[in-house]
């Protein structure tokens, strides 16, 4: 069962602020417009998401719009977990 979207948002905000040391205050902050995600941090984010949720995505093929905000990443993860292509946080 997919976790509540709010749970995913909280987990992702912690991932940004603590693991990646990138300050993201709100789930609706535009990560691309604000320059928080560049090609390096984007690749690292994908690595951490794969480690934690088992979701596989690469910058070569993914729709980056799904990663514009923490809220959108949470929605993407929820969809992947529901479809059995990812798991809840480990």
């Amino acid at each position, binding site marked *: 069962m997919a976790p509540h979207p709010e749970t995913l948002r909280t987990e992702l905000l912690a991932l940004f602020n603590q693991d990646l040391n990138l300050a993201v205050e709100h789930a609706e902050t535009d990560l691309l417009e604000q320059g928080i995600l560049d090609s390096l941090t984007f690749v*690292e984010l994908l690595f951490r998401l794969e480690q934690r949720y088992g979701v596989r995505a690469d910058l070569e093929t993914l729709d980056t719009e799904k990663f514009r905000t923490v809220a959108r990443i949470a929605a993407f993860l929820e969809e992947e977990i529901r479809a059995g292509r990812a798991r809840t946080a480990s």
Partner: protein
Amino acid sequence: MKVVLVGEESAGLGALRLLLDRGVPPVAVLTTPPAAERRGFSLWSEAHRLGVPALPAHAVREPVPDHLRQAGIDLLLNVHSLHVIRAPWLTLPRLGAFNLHPGLLPEYAGLDSASWALYEGAGTHGVTLHHMEPGIDTGPIAWQRRFPIGAADTALRLNQRSIREGLGLLSLLLEAAGRGGTAIPRVPQDLSRRRYLGRTPPEGGWLPIEGPVARCIGLVRACDFRPFPSPWGTPGLLRGDRRVEIVQASPGTHPAGCAAGTLGPRHDDGIDLACGDGFLRVHLVRWNGTVMAAQEVLREGELLRRGPGDDAGGTKR
């Protein structure tokens, strides 16, 4: 095996992860430290977190520190670092120093190989792992991998593919080095075919509408690093006295039959723009700083023109 990694950007990070996955934690990572006031994630911070000693990248221009000279280094890997490495560093490792170049050598030496390949309409791109010499991108080739450029490839996608393929070449090197290094190929480059491509983008920042459609589309794709800033900027044209930037385009479906720069019919997915040998379909433009559907901004019958001089690649975003 003892490895020194000189790296930057996501490719450098990928190389660090590859080395750790292979049980070969680098003896040192040389990379650019983040500015003191800048919080955030970097190869430097990640090396520290993983317990890998990090040195500032500019150290490669200085004498090799004693502790590295005495460490018995086997390999030095240069992954997307633009620092010119001094000779004593290149002769330090027992099995050699290797540069992962994100382009095909000898034809695409220098910078921004993927963008140049797209601009030139090349059918293939590739990556090269070569032995390092004091010259830039000149040493004998160890391995090279080619792959086709797809119609939908942008500079971002091609660069990402290059990193993925390049890490595959580093794996080959680590395997060969682990078996003693004698199987590492050493094929001299044919330097008569060498081209060194520099930092300055072509066409002065303007879309070359007098030329073929393919050249225009090649430049648009070469500048397409969305959603990240483009080091080549975005090619533009003058609309009246203001610049409109062409963010996304594809080949049109019929000959233009009108002057280059003339805007043709509007469609659901864009508007036609006459070039030297036909129409291209403009899908997205940047106008007033905002990326918008081209057909919502531009009007049939308007004439766009190339501006004077060098616009330095337009908006670097």
